């Protein structure tokens, strides 16, 4: 059992959890994740370790509610528990002093990019962060990102805050301004990562993405998380999750991630229906 000692929403549908897991806190490095299982009936889902606190012995997870498990998780409050938290898993980010490093985060991807951005800064890079969201109220970790950046930008699709447009446009703008960029880290929805890869490809800028295939064990045992990189099969949980963006077969990842779309939809409908019923009962009781 792992105790949640602090839970709060950062934006609509995006919640941060601080969880007691002293050993993981001590061991984890930027780029690594945990796999959690909420309860006996739960599935195992991977979540990046956004931060850790050695004194308190905690790790932070930032969760976007997209389906049954993440929505159920986001209903957990301070004091609740999670049955299983296993990690740290995956290879840590490869951190070097590249020179100028740009960290691009889209949506909840910003949370995943954050620890690596911190590590890039600590390694002596000139760090630029581009933090994208659909609109102003969905921007997360703005202050935290600013604090580790030499330059930081926020972009919104609807122009309600910061730069009006996509993160790719902002990155292209920086390149066009003649900035010498040595390294790009891009984490977010697959279409975004794919688009960033296309922006940097002509300039041969080393670009790394963190892939999010469907996982179970996270130890290399099931092969469910396999992705194609450079035409070769890799297991993202042990060989990744970070890979060379220019070598990833994004179409295969998109296709594989759709495997359970119908079933996931059903599970979510059932869950929301049940939540709705509980709410109704509570109201009636009042």
């Amino acid at each position, binding site marked *: 059992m792992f105790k949640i000692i602090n839970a709060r929403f950062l934006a609509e549908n995006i919640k941060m959890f601080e969880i007691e897991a002293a050993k993981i806190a001590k061991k984890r490095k930027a780029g690594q994740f945990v796999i959690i299982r909420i309860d006996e009936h739960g599935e195992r889902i991977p979540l990046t370790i956004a931060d850790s606190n050695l004194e308190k012995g905690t790790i932070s997870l930032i969760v976007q509610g997209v389906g049954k498990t993440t929505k159920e998780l986001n209903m957990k409050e301070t004091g609740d528990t999670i049955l299983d938290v296993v990690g740290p898993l995956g290879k840590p980010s490869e951190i070097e002093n590249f020179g100028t490093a740009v960290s691009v985060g889209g949506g909840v991807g910003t949370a995943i990019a954050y620890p690596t951005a911190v590590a890039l800064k600590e390694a002596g890079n000139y760090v630029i962060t581009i933090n994208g969201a659909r609109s102003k109220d969905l921007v997360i970790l703005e202050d935290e990102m600013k604090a580790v950046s030499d330059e930081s930008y926020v972009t919104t699709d609807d122009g309600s805050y910061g730069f009006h447009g996509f993160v790719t446009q902002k990155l292209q703008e920086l390149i066009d301004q003649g900035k010498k960029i040595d390294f790009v880290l891009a984490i977010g929805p697959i279409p975004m990562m794919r688009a960033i890869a296309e922006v940097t490809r002509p300039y041969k800028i080393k670009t790394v993405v963190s892939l999010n295939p469907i996982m179970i064990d996270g130890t290399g045992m099931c*092969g469910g998380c396999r992705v194609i990189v450079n035409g070769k099969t890799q297991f993202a949980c042990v060989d990744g999750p970070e890979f060379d963006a220019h070598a990833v077969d994004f179409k295969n990842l998109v296709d594989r991630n759709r495997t359970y779309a119908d079933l996931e939809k059903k599970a979510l409908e059932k869950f929301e229906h049940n939540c709705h019923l509980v709410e109704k009962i509570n109201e009636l009781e009042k």
Partner: protein
Amino acid sequence: MKQLTPKERMKIPRHAMIEQDPQVRNRNFEEVNLGYAEQMAIEEAQRCLQCPKPTCVEGCPVHIQIKDFIAFIAEGDFLGAVKKIKEDNALPAICGRVCPQEEQCEQACVVGKRNDPVAIGYLERFVADYERNSGKVDIPVPKPSTGKRVAIVGSGPAGLSCANDLCQLGHEVTVFEALHELGGVLVYGIPEFRLPKAIVRKEIDGLKAMGVRFETDAVIGRITTVDELLGEEGFDAVFLGVGAGLPWFMGIPGENMVGVYSANEFLTRVNLMKAYEFPNYDSPILDCHDKNVAVFGGGNTAMDAVRTAKRLGARNAYCIYRRSEREMPARVEEVKHAKEEGIQFMLLTSPLEFLGDENEWLHAVRLIKMELGEPDDSGRRRPIPIKGSEYELSIDIAIVAIGNGANPLIPQTTPDIEMSKRGTIVVDEETMKTSKKGVFAGGDIVTGGATVILAMGAGRKAAQAIDQYITSGEW
């Protein structure tokens, strides 16, 4: 008891196992074999000739005193029989169910020369079940504490049997397991219909009661390295029983399409995550109902996967294997059961390519017929493709069950342990010592995918050597 002459004993026919009806069981996950009744067990035990030189014992990898335990059964002393078995095998309820007896103890039984061999496995299973159901499971009292601490990595049969012996010797034992459940392949791989999980859990409860500690959700190499176990964590020795859990794929086009599973993933979703109870349990699995499912391979894993697919409602469940039935590595009983359940075997057939739509959803596989040529390194006749025999088979789900390699997590994080070219850990065969001081290994991580009983035997061997090492301090 009436004394029978050897001749009379030889004439008693072997008692068949009571089984669930094939057409019923291929729709449920309950155990196929229902076990012997007491009288059947006694009669079966009377078939044993009590040979002066029991060859059966040589056939068993851990040399269970088969003749002696069967003598107890013949006298109706079932608890005495289990006690005898447990001198050499800590997990009889499991081995009695999953050992390939026909090529081990039973193959070496002299009765088998004229008649069917004594059903050693069924008898082993019977007495272990008898003990468990009687509620009189004997939990050994460990020797006085030695103050020495041993870390066991992996809770499969190798780790469990090693933990059992070391605990009895008075050492403090902690087992670290990566998954949320204990038992290794026994829980995530072998399905309920062959090995009920409650049995595995009972064995583990016994170890807990004896004093073995278990830590789940602990991936050694990540949360703690082997060096840290020996260093700051203060363990005197480490046993690595991490198994061979890295699924091989065939390397043919289309293998990463939606609908192509490794057997490990398919079985883990069903056994460990209970996906067949979706959405009551949250892990999904592609719906097999009324679908065509093809499993590639001919071992126990392939049988488990294809029979599971059938139970999940597959219209056609194919087992596609590139050699002939004779070369199949699966236990004979599993192949027989699979056939009875309506599994369709396509032998001497090999896949060339998976075919799918533009969204990479699998819809067919291109196959080629094979013929057998000269024997290869493994002594089995090499399959050779027959030119021009290619054809397509329409399938919705494919499951690749061609074996597992060694998981690289431990070697990656403990570079000073010597590995073979195949990625397995190199050990001294007598002591199970690795090249790193204080570290021992056994089971599938040393042999590559093998059997439960061999893993168990290795765990026990290592326990002896570990005991010697930590009490003497001599490596």
